[in-house]
């Protein structure tokens, strides 16, 4: 289980290969990569603020919960903070399991909790505005699935 919180960019493919190579006899690897998307049409920059200390703690708790709930060999969570630009990766999770169902469900679970329970806040700078991204009711509702 590995949780990384960093400002620097990361190489998703290299991370996936390293994660996969570290497994033993796991038949299923699922990864999710989140990319900065220009929802507003005109996004210059996305700033991600976080709560150092609590962030690592929250991500480790979410990853540990996933390891308990599903039959997993390993979990990886990487999340960036600071200034990001459209089409840059924000974060990724990866799960390894003997079975595809566990790998898929655990990755889906990690994303739902990471979205609404890890202390990150996004601010979108467009040419016209500079606003904090509002949380979505559908993201809160998604937690009820688990």
């Amino acid at each position, binding site marked *: 289980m590995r949780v990384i919180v960093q400002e620097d960019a990361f190489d998703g493919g290299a991370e996936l290969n390293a994660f996969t190579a570290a497994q033993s006899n796991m038949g299923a690897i699922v990864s999710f990569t989140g990319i900065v998307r220009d929802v507003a049409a005109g996004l210059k920059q996305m700033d991600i603020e976080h709560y150092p200390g*609590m962030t690592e*703690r929250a991500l480790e708790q979410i990853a540990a919960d996933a390891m308990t709930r599903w039959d997993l060999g390993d979990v990886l969570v990487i999340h960036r903070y600071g200034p990001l630009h459209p089409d840059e990766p*924000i974060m990724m999770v990866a799960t390894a399991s003997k079975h595809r169902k566990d790998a898929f469900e655990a990755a889906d679970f990690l994303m739902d909790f990471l979205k609404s329970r890890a*202390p990150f*806040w996004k601010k979108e700078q467009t040419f016209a505005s500079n606003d*904090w991204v509002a*949380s979505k009711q559908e993201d809160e509702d998604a937690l009820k699935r688990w």
Partner: protein
Amino acid sequence: MDVLYFAWVRERIGLPKETVETKAATVIELVEELRAREERYALAFSDLSALRVAVDQDLTDFDAPINGAREVAFFPPMTGG
């Protein structure tokens, strides 16, 4: 006790962190003390349903006890991922 503010709560109050001397027993009592200080605090804490709180880096509720806590943080709902 350290009190931390993030995102628009930090912007409205105008600082990321301050040390507060308080006898408040719960988060909501601390919020009442902060609200009474200045307009910018009253504004930041005007709608508690738009806020989340963590005590010693664990998410909790506004009626949670804060006796012996080292830090209390206020922020909007998270938007990571």
